[in-house]
């Protein structure tokens, strides 16, 4: 086992798969010679050559469109979109082509593209370097949507994504690339070295897509979340002193309904948290599932804590970010609601 931060884990995932499977290629803006603006592909071009780690023109639609064609011709492309905020120019290729190809050709054609993209705020990136658009993708049938919250899962899930014959949109919460973050920007940065999930096998392993992880057991309330907010939720639960069960979804689509509903049936209370804007966000689907499957066990309305329904403001990112305090308030509200 090695110590890895999330960047290293993601890089290691690509490295391991590229080493085993010559059909895996990486493409994206600045991913080649330079190694990516977040360094996730650093060293891969040196190791696997310019023909497998490809600097692409600045055209997200072109990157995804070309990757689809490569996939149809037997390659297994891993496309990087530099920021999730810049995935929209590729949206038509994702929705109309990548997600639909297997279906419309009854499996004669498919393209196992993985799209990696850093998401989320907390890095003073302003509204175009901070978005969490996962809720737009979970609504699209034919693609899988994944968001890890730690190095171990990042590597295992990314390998699973690349090896999956289904297209996967793989969101990387950039705020926790270098260390877990509990939502308090004033605390000194913590590194992954001190976190159990910073221990990552060097070699090949997978974390299955579609399986959530219960990161903390508890009996009073279930907190369902993913990405950066997993760490905030843990901190918030501790701050409140709540006996909270915390579920890290890891995969958003498919989502692990069983783990969620079993937990809520046990605790009777539920808070959902994500960084993305609230209205029409993925948390809505989670709430809709839980209210239905756990109706007779719920003792309080399901709470949602999320980013405000505004763009992500540069100066007020800590007022925007659903931090420990907002989550704590959310937990209290759910706990205090009359049964």
């Amino acid at each position, binding site marked *: 086992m090695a110590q890895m931060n999330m960047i290293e884990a993601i890089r290691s995932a690509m490295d391991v798969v590229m080493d085993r499977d010559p059909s895996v290629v990486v493409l994206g803006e600045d991913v080649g010679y330079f190694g990516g603006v977040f360094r996730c592909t650093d060293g891969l071009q040196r190791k696997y050559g310019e023909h497998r780690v490809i600097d692409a*023109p600045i055209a997200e639609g072109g990157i995804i469109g070309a990757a689809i064609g490569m996939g149809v011709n037997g390659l297994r492309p891993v496309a990087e979109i530099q920021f999730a905020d810049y995935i929209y120019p590729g949206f038509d290729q994702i929705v109309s082509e990548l997600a639909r190809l297997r279906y419309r050709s009854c499996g004669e054609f498919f393209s196992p593209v993985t799209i990696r993209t850093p998401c989320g705020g907390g890095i003073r990136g302003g509204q175009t370097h901070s978005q969490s658009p996962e809720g737009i993708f979970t609504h699209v049938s034919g693609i899988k949507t994944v968001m890890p919250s730690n190095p171990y899962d990042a590597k295992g899930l990314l390998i699973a994504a690349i090896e999956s014959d289904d297209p996967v949109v793989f969101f990387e919460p950039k705020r926790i690339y270098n260390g877990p973050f509990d939502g308090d920007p004033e605390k000194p940065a913590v590194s992954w070295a001190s976190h159990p999930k910073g221990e990552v096998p060097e070699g090949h392993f997978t974390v299955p897509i579609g399986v959530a992880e219960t990161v903390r057991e508890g009996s009073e309330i279930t907190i369902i979340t993913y990405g950066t907010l997993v760490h905030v939720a843990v901190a918030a639960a501790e701050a409140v002193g709540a006996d909270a069960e915390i579920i890290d979804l890891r995969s958003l689509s498919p989502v692990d309904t069983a783990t969620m509903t079993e937990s809520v049936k046990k605790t009777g209370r539920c808070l959902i948290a994500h960084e993305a804007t609230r209205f029409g966000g993925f948390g809505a689907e989670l709430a809709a599932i839980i209210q239905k499957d756990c109706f007779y066990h719920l003792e309080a309305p399901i709470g949602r804590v999320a980013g405000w329904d505004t763009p992500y403001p540069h100066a007020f990112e800590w007022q925007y970010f659903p931090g420990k305090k907002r989550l704590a308030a959310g937990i209290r509200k759910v706990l205090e609601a009359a049964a």
Partner: protein
Amino acid sequence: MSKQSRLHIPRPTARPGEEPDFSFLELSAAGAVDKPSVGARTRDIENLSSDMVRVLDDDHRAVGPWNPDLDPQKLQVALRWMLLNRVFDERMWQIQRQGRISFYMQALGEEAVSVGAAMALRHGDMCFPSYRNQALYMVRGVKLVDMMCQCLSNTRDMCKGRQLPVMYHSRAGNVFSISGNLATQYPHAVGWAMASAIKGEDHIAASWVGDGSTAEADFHHALTFAAVYQAPVILNVVNNQWAISTFQGTAGGERRAFAARGLGLGIPGIRVDGNDLLAVYAVTVWAADRARRGGGPTLIELVTYRGGAHSTSDDPSKYRPKDEWKAFPLGDPVERLKQHLIAEGHWTEAKHEKLVEELRALVLAAWKEAQTYGTMTEGPFIDPTTMFDDVYAEPPERLEGQRRRMLEIERNGGGH
């Protein structure tokens, strides 16, 4: 608004009730355009993007350096494919008009575009067609009955009832799946060709879009990636003058030919008489050779005319002169190849009529067979729960749950 608008509004030369006018269409005489070596530098062959490569002359002879010297037998095969395309379309159009399929799109007047290319490419070369390239599937071995079953969404439908008619695919034939979204296949072809180059194979890719579709982002993405990586790909623009109701000027064709669209990226363009099977064949072979030798992409503009309505949902009499096709200077591709074969002594009117009859019978037989696999109104029907297949390779439980729910509803008598 008080002041006069200064916006330039592109207008076709003729609207319904007016005299068709193709005086804007710049032509070259057959045989007049030089044929450069496939290694020529883009800047030395720019003329090819404004001139027009033509082989068949007004006397139906094949002339000039681009004459591919195809033997008569091969030409007869080409004629047969083009006619088959036309006869098939005719029948399917009629079938749609009878309400027996929901939709159809014909290639009337553009048959040389697909047949010429299909015959010029190798089987291992991958085609990424638009919806008007049905002949590619035919030449690449897809059976008529299978194409009809697709249009019928019946039990033998290759698309299992999921797709609108004409949205074929053929893995065995190396012809990609048609998308409803225009131009999306263009970057796929480039990516496929990039993969072929990466793998060190010498298969190339070819794709087709219409004049109107060149305005889409994917056209630009495809050209850019093709140029940057010198992908072995042929990018065809089928300029059939119309995009539903808008003429090619609305897509930017007023000032410069579509063949010139890649010049700014260093992609050579060839403007070709799209109704001249020999010319289409010749330029495709040239571009394929160039690509296979590492010369990179070529953009081919096939100048043709959409002889019929855009689709069965369209009524072109609303926006263009009824007889515009008749005035089109490049004529009818089927007629031109036929007259060429006759002029060369390899064909007769009688043989032609016989061939048409034969093809009609073939198509009719296929139609009869196709119906035995089910029609829109009569069984056998495809099991509707198959609609949950192939959304994913590894389907999530929620889809299986929905499949069960649907089965339950069907069991309770189905209906609405």
